[in-house]
């Protein structure tokens, strides 16, 4: 009985740790910046990507029709366009209103102003765009949805937000914040483990040929192949390292001794993806999620807790 109670206490302590909300500040700031950059990066193509027949690359109606067949409750831009039409707004006007609201929600998240409302708005509008533009979405959209979903459920505002300063209130529900940080940590472990495992099952990561293919695959081919060829001996090492970093993530990110090293390795991997493949937004969202989940408290003891300056008592 005592053993059962002990396990239950351990599980509760693990899932609901009392933690500072520094991680939430990182998540809010990072996702705010990500949302702003997402909106700005699509400024010139917003209507082209999310419009309907006549103005768009591929009509939004197709993705929304397929989505409606599968699930009627998932938000989409078509809902907002329909609401806008009731007040006499054209589709383009509604789409631009969505873009402006998305940009503003990102900016207010960075500031920590109306944190909860901004997080919900950013999540909702981004999800609408991601689902209506399903044919033109990729990994960055999945991870933005994940991040914004956890952010809007977490106990906002955090202590560094403008909201907190204005209200002069203390962060509440630290155990709830700890819970959502734990869920994000476990979610990242699942993501990296299965991503790594799937890579291990492919032959091309062991001999490095997949790295060559990824780096020469349009539109990711921003490094000239003649430069890549000079580093060909390095590809098998790098390919195996990626498999090990991702598959080993759920173990080594939890061990105190290896957490800092693993976090640095993962961050380096994402920076390299951003720089060599031009996937800046994808890299940023992965860096933000990793930093929020694991950076607070993961610095090596010598860095985290510098030895105190010896107190010199005044000489009489």
């Amino acid at each position, binding site marked *: 009985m005592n053993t059962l109670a002990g396990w239950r206490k351990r599980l509760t302590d693990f899932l609901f740790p009392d933690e500072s909300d520094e991680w939430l500040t990182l998540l809010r700031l990072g996702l705010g910046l990500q949302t702003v950059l997402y909106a700005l*990066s*699509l*400024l*010139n*193509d917003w209507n*082209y*990507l999310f419009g309907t*027949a*006549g103005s*768009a*690359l*591929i*009509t939004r109606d*197709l993705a929304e029709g397929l989505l409606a*067949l*599968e*699930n*009627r*409750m*998932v938000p989409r831009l078509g809902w907002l366009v329909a609401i806008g039409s009731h007040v006499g707004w054209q589709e383009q006007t509604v789409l631009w209103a969505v873009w402006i609201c998305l940009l503003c929600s990102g900016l207010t998240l960075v500031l920590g102003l109306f944190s909860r409302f901004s997080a919900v708005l950013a999540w909702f509008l981004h*999800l609408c765009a991601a*689902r209506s*533009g399903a*044919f*033109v*979405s*990729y*990994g960055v*959209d*999945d*991870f933005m*949805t*994940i991040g914004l*979903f956890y952010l809007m459920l977490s106990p906002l505002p955090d202590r560094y937000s403008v909201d907190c300063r204005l209200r002069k209130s203390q962060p509440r529900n630290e155990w709830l914040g700890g819970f959502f940080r734990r869920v994000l940590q476990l979610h990242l472990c*699942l*993501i990296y483990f*299965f*991503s790594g495992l*799937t*890579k291990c*099952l*492919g*032959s*091309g*990561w062991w001999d490095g*040929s*997949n790295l*060559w*293919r*990824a780096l*020469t*695959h*349009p*539109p990711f081919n921003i490094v000239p*192949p003649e430069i890549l*060829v000079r580093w*060909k001996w390095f*590809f098998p090492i790098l390919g195996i390292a990626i498999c090990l970093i991702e598959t080993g993530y759920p173990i080594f990110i939890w061990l105190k001794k290896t957490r800092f090293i693993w976090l640095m390795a993962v961050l380096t991997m994402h920076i390299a993806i951003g720089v060599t493949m*031009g996937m800046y*937004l994808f890299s940023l969202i992965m860096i933000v999620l990793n930093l929020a989940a694991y950076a607070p408290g993961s610095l090596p003891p010598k860095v985290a807790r510098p030895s105190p300056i010896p107190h010199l008592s005044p000489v009489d």
Partner: protein
Amino acid sequence: MLVAHRLTIIPTGVSEYSQKAENVAAAVLGLHFTRSNPVRQTLGSYLAFAGIDAGYGYFAPNVPSGYKLVFELHDADGHTEYRRPSANSAAAGLRLASLLDQIGRTDSDELREYMIKELAAVIWREHPEVKTMRASLAQVVQPTIADYERGKAERYELLYAYDFSLASESAKRSGQ
């Protein structure tokens, strides 16, 4: 799913068990219910809201081939021009590549034709003088490092070609 579909280095004998595992996963996610079933709708909504309905096998098990779509434009004077779908920014360029991947990988002939027709309409808006158009979808075959060092460049394997004419606005698939 990848194992079940024999896309990995795992021996084929394991794929039978993987198929069973895939069935179990589908049952857990409510995919065995009808689409209108409330359980399936609720589960599907949660997965979409949380962003966890996508797989995490980016560039795995192997990096897939890319696709290239080229439109051959013919005007009334017999001039021929070539155009490719384009975007105004690098960020949208990544999304366009994702769209081409989905066009190339879909098993549905109708969906592929519909999407290519949509892209053809964009080109047509920019070139209203064009009378007929041929869309060619090809798979990009990248050279290996050794092939590249021997001077080989990427090549294209034609998968599908569609002919469009302004009069009928219909597509006719002419090759595979």
